């Protein structure tokens, strides 16, 4: 009976205010690059059968995409665009390396990766390996990949569609969302990586 109705209202309003504030913060930062250094050690293999490790993300800027070859739309579109960006950047873009890290290592052998990436450009390197090591890289960049089984026994992969822009210092500098305007994407690459 001694409860102050004003206090109750004030508490409710404060609670709503804080919830909204947290929501706004979440939305604001959700699509921002996670400006963190990649600190995960891994041991994988490239499409030419050579061993690769975390050092591929340092010493030169890179464009990194997490995709797979059994992907009808988003992956070929993105890789086609990456090839276009590299062409458009010409000599300026020579320091940039680009990687397709498969999220489907069980099907994407180095051979399959090689045939796939070279169809787009001679500047894209495929990266595959054991599912455990692939998971480390995906988690290390805070990307997402998940197997979705089909009723016929096969599966598709759900995965992050952003193209990751990684600086020579091994830090994430930006993301190019799927479907970006090519001119916008290229200027983003220039300002973030070159």
């Amino acid at each position, binding site marked *: 009976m001694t409860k102050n109705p004003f206090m109750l209202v004030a508490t409710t309003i404060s609670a709503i205010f804080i919830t909204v504030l947290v929501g706004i913060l979440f939305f604001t930062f959700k699509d921002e690059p996670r400006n963190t250094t990649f600190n995960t050690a891994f041991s994988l293999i490239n499409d030419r059968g050579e061993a690769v490790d975390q050092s591929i993300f340092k010493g030169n800027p890179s464009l990194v995409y997490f995709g797979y070859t059994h992907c009808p739309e988003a992956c070929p579109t993105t890789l086609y665009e990456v090839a276009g960006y590299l062409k458009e950047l010409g000599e300026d873009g020579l320091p940039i390396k680009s990687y397709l890290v498969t999220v489907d290592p069980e099907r994407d052998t180095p051979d399959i990766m090689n*045939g796939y990436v070279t169809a787009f450009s001679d500047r894209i390197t495929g990266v595959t390996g054991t599912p455990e090591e692939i998971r480390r890289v995906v988690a290390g960049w805070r990307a997402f990949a998940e197997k979705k089984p089909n009723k016929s026994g096969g599966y598709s992969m759900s995965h992050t569609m952003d193209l990751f822009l990684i600086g020579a210092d091994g830090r994430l500098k930006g993301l190019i969302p799927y479907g970006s305007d090519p001119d916008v994407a290229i200027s983003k690459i220039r300002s973030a990586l070159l």
Partner: protein
Amino acid sequence: MSTIRAKFLVAAVALMLPGTASSQHMHAHGTGNITIESAFSRAMLPVAKVGGGYLTINNAGAADRLVGAKSDRAEEVQIHEMKMTGAVMEMRELDNGIPVPAKSTVKLEPGGYHLMFTNVSRPFKEGETLAVTLIFEKAGPIEVEFAVGPFAGAQRPHAAHEGHH
């Protein structure tokens, strides 16, 4: 589950008998209430195993449902939905197909519903056509020719400009 699928099959076969496909026009296929427009696929990379299929379903009649598809060019033709949740693309097979409401137009297009051709042995080449049978719950099978266009991405710069609805 399997009895439901069996019923679908029986229904599909029963409906197959009276309806023969017409290929009167390049852009509209099917007889009766359901017509198919702008069916297309894309050129696949030489090593790729899967291709996507896109089309527009016009339904002038009662509610129906696209329940399956098949083609000699693929081991299976699955019905998929691609959804973008934030930056993540989610792919899933639609076990119950795609509803086609009465008097409606349903589009299977990049970024949404699509057909998925699996285990394609001869990758699709630009300029060829694919013979595909679409199976509707009520209208039965409809033969459709899919035109194979350029690679995914090849028309992207234009698509990206037009794509902001």
